[in-house]
């Protein structure tokens, strides 16, 4: 399985990779993107099976990335990993077609709960 991780923080991308492993999701190919636009480009070239994306990023935000993917017809499972987890943002994410929203700081259990439906261990 290919997993695309979009975050403008290298530290957070590394934490997400590590947390995936801790949640029991090992052995997957990981592709990293530094912002939403980079993620969109890499989505088109790599065709990942899952996108994990920050919300606030330069160039293109996570919600704009999701809307662009859905507008292009992609139904790839998409989950936000973001520092803001207000009910309004969760509603916005769900309305745009996100699988869920994992708020930072997070735990491996939060990853397991959110991603179990789409990621194989």
């Amino acid at each position: 399985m290919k997993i695309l991780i979009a975050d403008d923080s290298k530290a957070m991308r590394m934490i997400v990779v590590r947390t995936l492993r801790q949640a029991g999701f090992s052995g997957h190919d990981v592709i990293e993107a530094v912002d939403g636009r980079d993620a969109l480009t890499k989505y088109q070239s790599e065709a990942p099976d899952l996108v994990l994306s920050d919300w606030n990023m330069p160039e293109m935000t996570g919600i704009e990335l999701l809307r662009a993917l859905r507008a292009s017809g992609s139904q790839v499972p998409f989950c936000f990993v973001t520092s803001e987890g207000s009910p309004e943002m969760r509603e916005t994410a769900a309305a745009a077609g996100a699988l869920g929203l994992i708020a930072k700081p997070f735990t491996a259990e939060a990853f397991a709960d959110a991603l179990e439906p789409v990621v194989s261990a």
Partner: protein
Amino acid sequence: VNPFAGLAAVRTELGATLVDVVSAVLVQEAAPTEEPLGPGTAAVARLGIHDTVTHVRVGVEVRLGLGLARVLAGEMMALASPQDEDVVDAVAELGNIAAGATKALLCQDARLSLPSAALTDEPFEISEPGVQQVRAVVLGHVVQLSVAPTEFDGLLWPPAVPNEALGGLR
């Protein structure tokens, strides 16, 4: 109504938020403290919160000593000897998480800027009244969170790309 007018009233919650964030990110026990930050080089992350209803903006700063910042970067990035750029990246993310939690505490209809982080020998200096500061101690070192009724210079805000423009990116 200015959502930040009651900043002083939520100081206790702000302190608890800082303790929670620091504890979770560093995977260490943290506690509130009134101890000041020690002297020396500090790692600083600054962000802004923009209330989209009133258009009032506040600044959020997270500040910690360089030694603790290196421990933070080592923990976050699983590095034995993080370089300065790793420290800045890690502190930016700590600031991002703390500011996101602060935003959730203060208002709902708001935007968060991107973090701006650096290593500095300059002390904290905001002369405007109304600045709220809380501190947490972790591993014997202090982390300081300041929320100020001011907008920091040079912050970048996430772009607002109209939905109709996104079709061209297919």
